[in-house]
């Protein structure tokens, strides 16, 4: 039995309808691909609680997530944009949403992660001075360092050159495995399939 279950989840709007029905084991990484409009982002928003399904159930460890508001779900999500507050530094951005774990060991984890992602020298800067790929890596770092066990990544490698892309991909996989995270990763790069334990193509 999976730790994350989407049980005949259906969501319909005026001109489209989507259905999801699958399970994912604890600690697994699932990559999601598909045309635009196939419902990749919608799936993440449903799990995170920004959208509500019309029918069906979403369960985490056997308990339905649907009654829970966004802030009470065990989710850490990376959005397609607006992941960083523009008016505070990268370092302060990284410290947000860390709950009670902001200790010395957390600081070390941030520095290590930043080194690994090649953004170690950017921590004191303001987000506006960063390139798209750099911003994305900052957001990625925070998303995976947060304590939540379920990680949702929406196009996390946008704006990165092929080399950085590969590096960041490897880091995500290693970090998720080390932390025992369950990951849904939306991507449109075929090469990212290698990062997943399982792959799904939506809308076929």
């Amino acid at each position, binding site marked *: 039995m999976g730790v994350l279950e989407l049980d005949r989840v259906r969501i319909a709007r005026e001109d489209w309808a989507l259905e999801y029905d699958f399970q994912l084991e604890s600690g697994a990484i699932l990559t999601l691909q598909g045309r635009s409009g196939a419902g990749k982002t919608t799936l993440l928003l449903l799990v995170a609680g920004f959208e509500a399904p019309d029918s069906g159930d979403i369960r985490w460890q056997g308990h339905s997530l649907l009654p829970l508001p966004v*802030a009470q779900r065990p*989710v850490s*999500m990376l*959005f397609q944009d*607006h992941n960083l*507050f523009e*008016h505070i530094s990268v370092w302060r951005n990284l410290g*947000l949403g860390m709950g009670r774990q902001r200790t010395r060991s957390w600081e070390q984890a941030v520095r290590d992660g930043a080194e690994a992602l090649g953004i170690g020298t950017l921590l004191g800067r303001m987000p506006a001075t960063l390139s798209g790929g750099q911003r994305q890596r900052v957001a990625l770092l925070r998303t995976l360092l947060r304590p939540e066990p379920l990680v949702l990544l929406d196009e996390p490698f946008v704006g990165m050159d092929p080399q950085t892309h590969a590096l960041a991909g490897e880091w995500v996989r290693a970090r998720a495995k080390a932390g025992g995270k369950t990951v849904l990763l939306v991507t449109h790069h075929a090469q990212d399939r290698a990062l997943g334990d399982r792959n799904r193509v939506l809308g076929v």
Partner: protein
Amino acid sequence: MPSSYRGGAGRVLALAGLSGLVAVTGVAFYGLIGFSGQVADPGTLQDPYFYGILGFSLKQAALSAGLSVLLGYPVARALYYLPGLWFRRTFLTLCLLCFVLPTLVLITGLVLLLGHSGRLAPLLGADWNLYGLKGILLAHVFLNLPFVVRALYLQLLHIPDTAWRLALQLGLPALTRWRLVEWPMVRGRLLVLGGFVFVLCFNSFAVVLALGGGPQATTLELAVYQALKYDFNLPEALTLAWVQFAIAGTLFVLLGRLGGSSWLVLEQGGDRVPVPGRWSRLGHGGVYLLCALFLLLPLLVLLPALADIPASLRLAPLLQALLNSFLLALACVIPATLLAWLLLWPQRLAQLQQRPRRRQLLEWLSTHTLAAPAMVLSVGWYVFVLPRLDLAQWGPVLVVLLNLVLTLPFALQQLRPRLLQFDAQYAPLCAGLKLAWPERLALEWRWLGGSLRAAFALVLLLAMGDVAVFALFGNEAWTTLPWLIYRYAATYRMQEAALASLLLLVVCGVLVWLLEQGRDGGA
């Protein structure tokens, strides 16, 4: 994502604040309804005196609004089409200063310039008279035209570059460009601005108090005051206040339907504006120059007062009055700014939950004191507290309270767009990060930055300029600077009035400068 945002404790607090605000108006009405056995006197409504006042109130407001909009539009165009104008930034700051200028500073300037022995009096002919409709219109246009200029200029900046590019590429002649690109952008705005200025002038007190007079030039607002303060005719005051509120309230509701105003914030943009030809450049330049002259003269005329300071002048009362004004305003500005922040919370929530009707209702409730004329609120409270409290003792508290509710809408207008922008960008992120309250507030505090300073400065300015509330609840023991100016002017001590005005002008100038600075830093 309608249902995914929840209010929490903040919403309860905010609703309590909103109830408090509504209660302030409620008490005023309770007073107006005539609790203490005094009833409104419908007989007043059959008096020709009443119709004279009503007619004049409407006439001067309509003329003021019409003139402000008609004259403001060309100035806004000049600013827009000639980006290289000298002192453009300074001029825009001056516009802001004029809009928030304490009325009595302006009136002193106008009297020194255009009064019986004013500097320009010899040019104006023998039958020129500043007092009456002409003076009131001059003052109202001076105070409101700059506001119209800023708002229309801002509106013009919103014309997308792509529209100009297309129009130029198609080779459209100037008139067609105006009809297709510019006019649709400003058309709706002109009406809203006209309506807004109409309400402001309809409710105007100090200008009419100082420059009006006699039954031919009295407005409802002033008549209410006179009925109360001089004749102590409560029933008449009540009737007039009711009529005043009914008219202003109706207009306010109508205006709300036409669309809100986000007027004080200046933005950058408009790089592709077509370059005007030589003649229209001259025209724009001339309009700009005339407007700058019109705005500067009544202020500059205060300066020579420095040259010969009368021996009778005592500095101590002047400074004491300034300190009183400042302390009263400060006591009002801190709660007003915080309350505005708090009251916006349920509105932002309604916006996030996509409940526009709820948001509109909350918005209307939180800004309704913009419609309630200061005098109506004051009279209501006056009647209410008279048998209950010692005014000599409670006066300052009431002045602060009433100024608080009267300036609150302006603080709201300053903070609202910035916070809505915050939500539009970051609401999912904040929810996703599960930020705790203190963390969230610290984030917003930093985000608001300049807007918070701007709200602070604006409320401070408006509260410092108050005359209407003080006129009812104040007394000589703690007189404010604007009231001191009025007293000097009323006793024809123009030198002293000029100096006091100059002092107030300088303080306001510094505050306006800070306000504009704050905005630059807030990006």
